[in-house]
């Protein structure tokens, strides 16, 4: 839908003036949200290993940001 993924092709062609209906967008939205959960899981597993505190450290935050960017670039490639 947004990052040139293969799910683009599944989306129906929009009607003349209205665009895709909510129901048509649901499967795409569902897949987007599932990917979102997957990104969170992968980046958490790879970046966060220190449980001496409750808050995420700055290095963990930058790691997560980079992880997210890389993840999206992988899907684009």
């Amino acid at each position, binding site marked *: 839908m947004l990052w040139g993924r293969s799910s683009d092709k599944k989306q129906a062609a929009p009607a003349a003036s209205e665009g895709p209906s*909510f129901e048509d967008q649901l499967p795409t939205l569902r897949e987007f949200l599932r990917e979102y959960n997957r990104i969170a899981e992968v980046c958490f597993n790879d970046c966060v290993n220190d*449980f001496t505190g409750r808050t995420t450290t700055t290095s963990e935050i930058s790691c997560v940001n980079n992880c997210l960017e890389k993840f999206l670039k992988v899907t684009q490639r």
Partner: protein
Amino acid sequence: MSNELNSNQLQAAGELEIEMMQDLYKRMTTACHKKCVIPRYKDSELTKGESVCIDRCVAKYMDVHDRIGKHLTTMTLQQQPSLQTQQANDPSRVVGSYK
């Protein structure tokens, strides 16, 4: 596309949100179990260290989840300006904080 959702669509959106929260819960418990619970099962009770670790793990996981959500929302809006008016009218229900 109209900004108003009828009750069927609202219900579908709510069911989707619940489904995603279940998915989130499953991934989070798997991740925190792996990170915090030592695979030596001499005792059935969680140690104090494991309990504290799980507590912190959940807090961090939700924080990571929220940050990624905000980042993705920002990127989505940048790529599709037509969504910005929708966002202003109906702040994301489905992609957002679960607190």
